C-alpha cells in the first residue's frame, strides 16, 4: 500500500524557481518531481490557471514534495461529477 500511487496536483511558487532554469518551468517541475520520485510520472504541467503540475506519487513522495522549497501545496486529485 505504501508504494500505491495516486495523482496529486502540485502547486509551485513560480517566483521561487532557481535561476538556472531560465524560463523553463517545465524543466524545473520535472527536476522537482525527480528529486522526490524516481518512478513518478508527470501527467500535465500547468501554466495558465496555476503554476505546477500533476503527477502520480506515493503518499510518502507527496509528503516529501510538500516539504520542498518552492512548493505551495500538494493536493490529492478529486473526482467531480456531472450535474
Amino acid at each position, binding site marked *: 500500500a505504501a508504494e500505491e500511487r495516486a495523482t496529486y496536483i502540485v502547486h509551485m511558487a513560480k517566483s521561487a524557481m532557481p535561476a538556472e532554469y531560465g524560463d523553463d518551468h517545465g524543466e524545473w517541475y520535472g527536476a522537482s518531481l525527480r528529486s522526490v520520485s524516481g518512478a513518478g510520472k508527470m*501527467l500535465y504541467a500547468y501554466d495558465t490557471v496555476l503554476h505546477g503540475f500533476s503527477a502520480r506519487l506515493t503518499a510518502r513522495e507527496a509528503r516529501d514534495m510538500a516539504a520542498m522549497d518552492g512548493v505551495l501545496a500538494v493536493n490529492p486529485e478529486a473526482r467531480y461529477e456531472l450535474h
Partner: protein
Amino acid sequence: TTRTPEFLGIAGNDGLFPQSGTAGDVVVGVLDTGVWPESRSYDDAGLGEVPSWWKGECMAGTGFNSSACNRKLVGARFFNRGYEAAMGPMDTTRESRSPRDDDGHGTHTSSTAAGAAVSGASLLGFASGTARGMAPRARVAVYKVCWLGGCFSSDILAGMDAAVADGCGVLSLSLGGGAADYARDSVAIGAFAAMEQNVLVSCSAGNAGPGTSTLSNVAPWITTVGAGTLDRDFPAYVSLGNGKNYTGVSLYAGKALPSTPLPIVYAANASNSTAGNLCMPGTLTPEKVAGKIVVCDRGVSARVQKGFVVRDAGGAGMVLSNTATNGEELVADAHLLPAAGVGAKEGAAIKAYVASDPSPTATIVVAGTQVDVRPSPVVAAFSSRGPNMLTPEILKPDIIAPGVNILAAWTGKAGPTGIAADTRRVAFNIISGTSMSCPHVSGLAALLRSAHPEWSPAAVRSALMTTAYSTYAGAGDANPLLDAATGAPATPFDYGAGHVDPASAVDPGLVYDLGTADYVDFLCALNYTSTMIAAVARSKSYGCTEGKAYSVYNLNYPSFAVAYSTASSQAAESSGAAATTVTHRRTLTNVGAAGTYKVSAAAMPGVAVAVEPTELAFTSAGEKKSYTVSFTAKSQPSGTAGFGRLVWSDGKHSVASPIAFTWT
C-alpha cells in the same frame, strides 16, 4: 434549446444585444464530455471568420478529425491522462479517446450555451420548435474532461489551462465535487486564475436539493447557477379504475396503451426484495408484473433504469412516483415503455387505491407538449440550496435559470435515456439538472460580454443578479417564486437573487464590480495563509497586510448574507449591548447614463437596516459611489433564518439585492 429563448424574453431580440465588433466575438469554453460535431447545432452559416486572437485547436483522435471544427465549433480538445492514470486504459469500445461525445451531456450543454438555430427540432415530437443556444452567434470550444468514469481534477485543470490560454471569454462547467475548501478545490483554483484573466466562469450549483447547505461551486469568483422550471410541460394522465385521474409527466412516444384499463400493481408487492418498491434491476417477479402497469418509487437507481427494469420483467407500463423529497417536481424521461412520472401526493393516492382495491386497474394517456404553464419558473426540487456551508457570509446560489426538461442537441452514440439497451438515436434530447441551467447562464454571459466587452466578469455577474426577478410577473412582493419541493414560496437560499432576466441585464444601471485584489482581501478575511493564497491566486505577490482589519462583509458582492452568531449576540447582550450590528460596505459603478439612485431596504421583523447615504448621484459612466448598510438585531435562537431586500432605483433601473440572515 426550444422555448427557453421565448421564456427568457430573448427570442428574436438580437437587437437587444448588439454585437460590438470583433471584441464582441465571444468563445464559450465548455468543459464536459465532449461534442458531437455532426449536430446541426454547430452549423456555422452566417458566422464571420474565426477571430485572429483565437488560439484554440481541433484535436484529432478516435473517430474525430481535426476538420470537424468550423467557425461555430472553433475548438475541441480532450484531456484523458488523469482519468486513465486513475482508472486504467479506457474501454475504447465504449469511449473515444478524442473530443467526441460518447455520452450526450457535453453536446447538450454546449449547444444550450451557444448552439446555432435549428428549425424542426424535437425529441420524438416533444418540445418541437427552433432549437437555438442562448448566444447563437457566439463560438463554442469544447474541452472533454469528463469520461464515463467521471471527471478527474488533473484533467479539469488541464482543460481550464488550455481554455483560458486559447482565449475563451466564458467557461461553462456543469460539474461539481464535494465542498472542499477553496484552496483544495481545483475548479475554484482554476476559476480564480480565469477570473484574473478576464474570463467569466459559470458553474452548476449541484442537484443535491432540496436539503439545505447542499451547494457545489460556491467560490465568490464563480457564478453559481441553480435550476428552475420553464412554462412548458409534457402532461400524462393516469386514469384509475376508481374513476380518479392524476396528472403526471411523460415523454413516451411509442405505441399507446389500450384504452381498456390494465391491472396495476405496486412494485413492493411484486418483488422478492425488501427494496422492491424501487424497481431496481433483478428485483421484480415477472409473473407478478407481466402485462400490468407497475408503480415504482423514485430513489437510488436512475429513473430511466427503472423503466427498463419494468419492461424487461414484462410490465406493460410504469407509474414512477416521487418521494417526499422530490415533492411535486415533474422531471420528464424518454422511457421506452408507456410511463408517467407523478408527484408525491399523486403517487401516494395511486398506491392507496392499488392497496385498497381487490382488482385495481389503470391506464396511462400521454398528452404531448403543453406550453404557457403557470406558475413558472418554480425552483426545481433537485436544485442545491444554501446557506453556503463554506462561507455563510456569501449568499449562494447567485441565480437560477431554466434547468428542468430542457431540449438541446444530443450525441449520436447513445440513446435519449443514456442506457446501453436504448438503441434509439436522436438529434435532440430532453434532460434536467443544474447542468442545464449553468450553460443557459454561460450563454447569456456571452451575450452580455458581446454587448459590453468592457465589463469585467464580476460586472457581468452583477448585471445578471441585480436584474433577476424573485416574484411572478406583475404580482409584486406578494407572490414570490415557488419551490417545487414544498409547493410553498422559495427563498434566496433557493434562488439567490432570483431568476435570470437577460433583457434587463443588458442595461442594469449600476454594477457591483470586483477584481483580483478584492478576492485576495476576501481570502485574507478568511485567515488564509500567504501560502494558501499563493496556491489559489498562483502568485506569492498577493498577501495580507499585517494589522489590517479584513472582513468578508466588505467583499463587493451583489447580494448580502448576514451570519449572526447566537452565542456572541447573547454574550454581547448579557454584558449590556442592546443588540448586534453587522455592517457591510459596497461600491456601485455606473454603467449607464447619469442618474440619481435612491435606496429602499426591507428586512425580516426584528432586524433594523440602515443605509448610509440613502441617495447616490452619478454624473458619468464608470463613476463609483460607496455606501454602507448596517443590520442590527437582537440575538435569535440558533437555526433562525430570515430574508430581506435592498434596492437602488433611479426610476428606470432597479438594482436589487437579496439579503439573507442566519443565526448559528
